[in-house]
């Protein structure tokens, strides 16, 4: 039980964080929630009427008079989720073996590799993505190399496809998968791996029965950290996907900036938040189960 003095001191110490989060985080979120239930104004802005058709348009109860239901929104949602999950899988497959390898290096090399992993953050995201455009476009580095090597006879279409979007997203989100996995792999007690081998488990059995199980929290954290920015991402599909690969993030961007339909954009954002919230709940439950196992 905290004493009165403690409570006051705590309130004082937490005040800056509370004010910051309240004004910069919860405030805009509340505005977004509110807008999603308001009627869009004819020339942008909102009319202050309760209006549930924003959600109807997405989920299928639009009356067909004021607002049209279009299955395309759900399809874009599903495509975004699929791409985000694929991206989680790609980054996991790349990062897990890499993290295992790095954790076995001598200490100074480990520090260097972790530094190198975070190095791309020093350069603007947009600049890095345009570098990918230069690599992937028909006359780009990739195609000219493949042509030069004689592996292909004409440039392959890779820019402005899902593949290009996946390459770009995997590229920018790789560190978010690598770092949590690396943290959990590094603190893995190596004597447990020896114990497993000693008890007759082959390296593969040891991997699935011990290594993977004990690094699950790192995998779960990495998956959430990659899934959430992938789902709402609009810069990568914008630059590398062109007009062909529309993701839910682009849709929101369009509603706010081009269509000037803020309530509909807000409703889409709330839907994204619900999906992300579900992902975090799944993550916390996975962690909770792990905690039961090894608090």
């Amino acid at each position, binding site marked *: 039980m905290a004493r009165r003095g403690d409570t006051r001191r705590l309130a004082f110490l937490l005040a800056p964080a509370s004010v910051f989060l309240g004004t910069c985080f919860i405030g805009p979120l509340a505005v977004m929630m509110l807008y999603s239930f308001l009627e869009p104004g004819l020339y942008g802005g909102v009319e202050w009427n309760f209006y549930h058709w924003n959600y109807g348009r997405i989920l299928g109860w639009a009356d067909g008079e004021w607002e049209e239901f279009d299955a395309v929104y759900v399809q874009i949602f599903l495509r975004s989720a699929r791409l985000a999950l694929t991206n989680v899988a790609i980054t996991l497959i790349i990062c897990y073996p890499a993290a295992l390898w790095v954790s076995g290096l001598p200490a100074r090399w480990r520090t260097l590799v972790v530094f190198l992993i975070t190095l791309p953050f020093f350069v603007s995201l947009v600049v890095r993505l345009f570098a990918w455009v230069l690599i992937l476009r028909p006359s780009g580095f990739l195609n000219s190399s493949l042509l030069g090597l004689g592996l292909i006879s004409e440039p392959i279409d890779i820019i402005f496809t899902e593949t290009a979007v996946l390459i770009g997203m995997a590229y920018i989100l790789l560190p978010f998968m690598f770092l949590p996995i690396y943290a959990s792999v590094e603190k893995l*007690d190596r*004597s*447990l791996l*020896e*114990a*497993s*081998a*000693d*008890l*007759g*488990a*082959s*390296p593969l*059995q*040891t991997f699935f*029965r*011990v290594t993977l*199980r*004990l690094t699950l929290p790192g995998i779960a954290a990495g998956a959430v950290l990659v899934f959430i920015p992938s789902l709402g991402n609009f810069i990568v599909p914008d630059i590398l996907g062109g007009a062909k690969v529309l993701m839910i993030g682009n849709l929101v961007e369009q509603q706010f900036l081009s269509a000037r339909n803020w309530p509909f954009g807000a409703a889409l954002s709330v839907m994204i938040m619900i999906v992300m919230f579900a992902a975090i709940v799944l993550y916390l439950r996975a962690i909770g189960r*792990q905690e039961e*196992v*090894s*608090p």
Partner: protein
Amino acid sequence: MRVDEEALDQETSIAEVREAVKRFAAPEGGVVTALNGVSLKVREREFVTLLGPSGCGKTTLLRAISGFEELDAGEVRIAGEPMGGVPPHLRPVNTVFQNYALFPHLSVGDNVGYGLDVAGVARTERNTRVGETLERLDLGGYERRRPDQLSGGQRQRVALARAIINQPKLLLLDEPLSALDRNLRKAMQLELKALQHDLGICFVFVTHDQEEALTMSDRVAVLNGGRIEHVAAPETHYYRPATRFVAEFIGDGALFPGRIEGSAEEPMLVTADGLRFAVAPGMAVGEAATLLLRPEQLGAPPESPDGSLGVVEARLEQSVFLGASHQFVCRMANGAIITAAPTGGGAEKLSGVAYGETVRLAYRRDQTHLIPEAGDGT
């Protein structure tokens, strides 16, 4: 010196290490030789302890047997099979690790059943054997607990259960008791010994604690600087150590290097600074040797000592009551410390003496042990 080794029948040897050499690159550069030509045989149903100070190579030797270290030279054989290139999971040995290395994500039952699970043993047989093994180690009812819900002693038992359930030919124990408190350690020592006797499995036990080694082992291999100093029964190591290192490492006692003088029947050991000790016959006159006198060998002399006793004079510096015995710490004329722990009524005779006074200490001449110069471990 290696008579017992040579008499060993090839058939009964469960594990054998031949001329093992292992070098490591030292972190600060250079090479550390952890094993420098080590040979050891472990017989059936035997409890062998590898004893030595830290860095003597005992853990490396254990890891060479379990397969976690590949030897640079020499070989390991288990049940006659050469183990070179055989990975740890294919060797018929199990290890109890120093920190127990229990799987934190598995229950006690699943930890113990791990070896059977990876071997694909049928569920019913597996459960029966897990139950039996847990019962045997007083862990009945703990099957569903997690390792972190157990005390240190219980974790120790789980680690043991997890290893013995696989019925290895050889059980390797790497300082398994070092994390336990003193009382628990004592109890576990006796329990381990009894368990080994019941199971009939060979135990190879690593420790730096000489008392632990003496308590449990059938034979003790004393290691020093990557070499085996000597392998012998605990009593032999204690009363008739083969080398000075063994004499110093195991038990308390005073060592007096010198040269044999006098007659062959009643030889005397004379130190460089002139102390004279009556010793048992056996070594040629003129030879260099070191005399070992254990505290229990020394007591107060009778009124008129005869030739069967050796008598030395020393100044009493301290008397220490230890419960089971009473120790009198004395200083010889050359400054050497000699400690007497008389048995029987001997303590009463000495306890009246004031600090600083001269006392006479006697020992039986026929029980003295001389370590020949060649056996000084070099």
